[in-house]
């Protein structure tokens, strides 16, 4: 699953640490999500989208390999 958190975060002038603090997770978790190493739960995905003023499906997008 790919995401545009990094882009939206830059648009909102937020650091990884600040976003992590707002959604109450560790900074490593935001790093892992941005790198596509960790897929967040629905609740965390909604929280991230809300902080970044976007819809969840604008931030996260399924890839071809996710269907296999």
């Amino acid at each position, binding site marked *: 699953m790919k995401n545009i958190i990094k882009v939206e975060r830059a648009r909102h002038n937020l650091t*990884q640490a600040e976003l992590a603090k707002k959604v109450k*997770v560790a900074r490593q978790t935001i790093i892992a999500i941005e790198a596509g190493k960790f897929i967040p739960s629905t609740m*965390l995905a909604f929280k991230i989208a809300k902080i970044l003023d976007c819809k969840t499906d604008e931030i996260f997008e399924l890839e071809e390999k996710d269907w296999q």
Partner: protein
Amino acid sequence: MRQNSFPYSYWTKFLRVIIVGVGIIRFFLQYHKKGISDLNELAIGFSWGFVFIFFSKEKTDDEMIQGLKFKALTRAIIVAFTIIHLYNYLFLNWRFNRENNIILSISAYQFLALTLIIATGGFYFMKYQTTLNEER
């Protein structure tokens, strides 16, 4: 709704240092007084100590940390069990005779200590790997 699978608070990690330390001191005391290398004594300290470090909450505990801990524990059980099974087979029961001998095995303390040491190491390694593309 916030759930946490780990029962012990963050501060219990400090208990680990004390318990592991006591285990190491007792091991060396036994060795010094009686000349016995009692690995079981060491394993008791390590197993209790690592129970507190592995099953305690992290400073910031979230779903990824819990997922990593679960992944580390499942892998560690398989690795530790394989190591112990091979050790028992190759070193303790190599010439096992079903009619005369009893099956020898290393203690549960040693198994638990090995499993939790591997799990803790694996957890911190996986956590480190996730921060490789950290922003400067």
